[in-house]
């Protein structure tokens, strides 16, 4: 395939206005599937099952089989709809979307068409530097996932050139909620960033509400990105492309950026954009053309006759609404104010995925700033070195008690880092590590004075300088004392004592 020509991003933005739309599919983590009692591979318990071991008759469209709706999937879908600020339909229903494909056991997908369970909401998306964008949600509807195809005989599992394909129906029937935005205007050069931040926000909402495992690498959250450009000042929307299955935050940002640059180059040279689906290639960072929209897209939707309308009661909706966690953006705003953080400080915590840890550490008694420093500083450094997650190393309680030992003078910052190392090594609580390693600060003035007197005696010239008013010369004595005390002394107290001794 010939490389597409790209226009520089800045130039593209000067000439065209990007309009994006995002469709995110989230796999719910219910125990069983949307329409069958087969175990759900999107639930962590089952995610590594062998092929075709999580199938009930309806998942593979066996003759006579019928779908039956999972009550828990309904609750989770409503919860998600509410978390997206949507209205919940007093009555919604399922429809069949008819098309033939080998990963679709029945050759129709049960989805929702003209009557989705949730509609018209909005999500506040934080771009990280304090700027927020309110993304309008058109709808969130329930549907089922398809099975998985593995293409054999071609290169790299691609469909092109494959001689046969293998089908696993484990994923067929996994409960999905598809969230569709309205077109998003006015994000300009930040459109790619917004796409990424939106996806992150949806993932955060899914995690906070507990409706999905939301593991991007497992495909629990998948994104289709619609991009179109219109010339500056134009009213009419340009022709859009839909880049399918962009499944990481970074990729969404890159894919949107790439499409803006590609479409701009075509439009600028007098070409037209084909309405089509496109594929994202992680390795090259490009999109390639897929299926053009055609007659074959006649899905012949009709109400699913095997299923009945879903009409959640007002009580159920209110019960689920009352159980909603705080929206991620609202929570961040609240914590930033409570903790008196700067934008940068909060961003540091959020980008490190450490908001929960810092919050718990503060709840355990640590000051917000110290909690932040521990988690984004030393703990993250060790985690990076060990190639693991900060939260896997220590608990917020341990961090808070470590900080307490500093605050009450038991440890210096330097000693505390050694204690942390012991805690990470599994030597026990901070106090246990202090005791076992004998790391506490020596607070017995007698021992310190003895050490100071020894040091002053060994360096009489320094004593003279101090007495002569050169107070900073005390540093040499402090160093010697700290060395003698193996670091377990409070340098400030040592300094005080030195000045006292020199003055007497």
């Amino acid at each position, binding site marked *: 395939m010939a490389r597409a020509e790209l226009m520089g991003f800045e130039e593209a933005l000067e000439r065209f206005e990007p309009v994006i739309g995002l469709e995110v599919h989230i796999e719910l983590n219910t125990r069983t599937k949307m329409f069958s009692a087969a175990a759900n591979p999107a639930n962590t318990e089952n995610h590594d099952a062998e092929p075709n071991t999580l199938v009930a*008759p309806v998942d*593979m*469209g*066996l*003759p*006579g*089989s*019928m*779908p*039956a*709706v999972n009550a828990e999937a309904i609750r989770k879908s409503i919860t998600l709809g509410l978390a997206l600020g949507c209205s919940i339909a007093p009555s919604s229903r399922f429809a*069949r979307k*008819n098309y*033939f494909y*080998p990963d679709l*056991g*029945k*050759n*129709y997908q049960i989805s929702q068409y003209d009557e989705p369970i949730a509609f018209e909401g909005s999500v506040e998306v934080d771009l990280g530097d304090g700027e927020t964008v309110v993304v309008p949600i058109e709808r969130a509807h329930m549907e089922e996932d398809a099975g998985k195809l593995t293409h054999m005989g071609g290169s790299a599992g691609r469909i092109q050139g494959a001689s046969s*394909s293998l*089908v696993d*129906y484990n994923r067929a029937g996994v409960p999905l909620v598809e969230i569709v935005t309205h077109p998003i205007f006015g994000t300009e050069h930040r459109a790619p960033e917004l796409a990424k931040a939106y996806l992150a926000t949806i993932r955060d909402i899914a995690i906070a509400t507990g409706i999905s495992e939301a593991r991007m690498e497992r495909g629990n959250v998948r994104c289709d990105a619609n991009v179109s450009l219109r010339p500056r000042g134009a009213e009419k929307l340009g022709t859009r492309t839909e880049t399918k299955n962009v499944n990481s935050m970074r990729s969404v940002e890159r894919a949107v950026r790439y499409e803006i640059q590609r479409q701009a180059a075509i439009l600028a040279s007098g070409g037209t954009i084909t309405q089509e689906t496109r594929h994202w290639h992680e390795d090259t960072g490009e999109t390639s053309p897929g299926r053009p929209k055609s007659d074959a897209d*006649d899905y*012949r*939707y*009709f109400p699913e*006759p*095997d*299923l*009945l309308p879903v009409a959640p009661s007002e009580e159920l909706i209110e019960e689920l609404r009352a159980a909603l966690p705080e929206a991620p953006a609202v929570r961040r705003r609240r914590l930033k104010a409570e903790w008196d953080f700067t934008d940068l400080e909060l961003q540091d915590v959020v980008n490190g995925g450490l908001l929960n840890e810092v919050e718990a550490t503060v709840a355990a008694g640590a000051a917000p700033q110290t909690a932040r420093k521990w988690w984004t500083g030393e703990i993250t450094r060790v985690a990076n070195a060990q190639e693991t997650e900060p939260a896997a190393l220590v608990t917020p309680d341990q961090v808070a008690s470590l900080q307490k030992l500093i605050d009450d003078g038991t440890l210096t910052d330097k000693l505390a880092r050694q204690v942390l190392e012991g805690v990470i090594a599994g030597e026990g609580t901070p106090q246990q590590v202090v005791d076992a390693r004998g790391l506490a600060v020596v607070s017995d003035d007698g021992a310190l004075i003895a050490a100071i007197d020894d040091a002053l005696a060994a360096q009489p010239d320094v004593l003279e300088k101090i007495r002569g008013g050169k107070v900073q010369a005390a540093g040499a004595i402090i160093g010697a004392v700290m060395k003698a005390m193996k670091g377990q002394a409070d340098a400030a107290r040592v300094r005080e004592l030195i000045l006292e001794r020199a003055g007497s």
Partner: protein
Amino acid sequence: MTDIIRMTAAELAAKLTEGEISSVEATQAHLDRIAAVDGDVNAYLHVNDAAVETARGIDERRASGEELPPLAGVPLAIKDVLVTTDMPSTSGSKILEGFMSPYDATVVARARAAGLVPLGKTNMDEFAMGSSTEHSAYGPTRNPWDLDRIPGGSGGGSAAAVAAFEAPLALGSDTGGSIRQPAHVTGTVGIKPTYGAVSRYGSIALASSLDQVGPVTRTVFDAGLLQDIIAGHDVHDATSIDREWPSMARAAIEGAAGEGLKGLKIGVVKELPDSGFQPGVADSFHQSLAKLEAQGAEIVEISAPHFEYAVAAYYLILPAEASSNLAKFDSVRFGMRVEVPGGTVEDVMSATRDAGFGPEVKRRIILGTYALSAGYYDAYYGSAQKVRTLIQRDFASAFADVDVIATPTAPTTAFKLGEKIDDPLAMYLNDLTTIPANLAGVPGISVPSGLSADDGLPVGVQFLAPAHEDARLYRVGAALEHLLVDDWGGPLLDRAPALNGGAR
């Protein structure tokens, strides 16, 4: 002692309970009958190898003193539309030749749990599309009254098996008359219960919003016994009704005792004039009404102005739903596969479906695809669903005035094999009287009313009741049956010609 095969299920059950006959004897007698006459009738597509063994199991349980359900040990024929784990399930289609279901249809599971002994699978029009059983991929079934005539359809196999004493009881399915119309032409009893009274799970779907499984028997009481076994909510079928049903067998007993005819209001549809029926059929119908009137029933003319649109609505809704339901037969997971050298999976699917489906099935799939496709939905499928509402309203206003509605079950007696096979429209008109019940979801029964004076062939009368009022049909049906059998001096089937097993 009466010949085992000529006993009703109730009589046989009594003898089994008393120990006068064993289930092995009963089962073997029917297997012998099948061996003797089914070469002519072709009611069975498959005879159960394990029938005698199953019967022996029932006998042993009875011998050990176990208390068994009322029909335990009675043989049962099963329409091939119902999936079974121990016998192939083809729905009369070549595309499913040899298909073995890994699960039992709910009605089959319930029948097994009640101790009924599956004798085999009965012939039917392919995927239940037809009114003559001539559309079976495995050759037509012949009417035991005249082997050159059709046994009705689509459940001609179940009706013929029961009429030819090849089974005392059978299961059928009725989408537009497939239980009632075969009952009419074979002199047997057939009931389409209220939509949702019986689970459809495991019934290979034709039109999901119309299909209903029900009993095929020689007496109304037997039908009641069977419906009591198979009815009730099933978590696998969301459209199955969750309620306590009164005993249909008890209702039949009450009806036969003459209860309920006095003051019973029977509606006769103005829009179904005698001119629409073969004279012998109309005569038989009026004789039955006169019998009921003589016992105190009141005949009331009612108007159902939208019945004339029923056939049209039916032939839109059915093909539309069927086109989607039959998409699963694609050669990927089960069923026939036609290899296409060098072809893609699309080619293989299309070639398989071309070779595997018969002409009537293709005709309806194409029609249904058309009715659902973009631009035609509102005019066709959408309008048909509205006609459904109008027909429901016709029923509602009629049932405000009458307790049941009566019609001849079908316009003519059994026609000759091949007579209408090339004229789909003429074939479709056979269902004129039975279709409204499916569209509205109300229950219907066909009871033998005698032999047509013009050709000596059986005729049935149909009664319809409001939804959920199945018991009312059993009462009225049993009452009429009792009066007529008294008159005739024995069951109508006593007058059927003897079958000589090939010596015709």
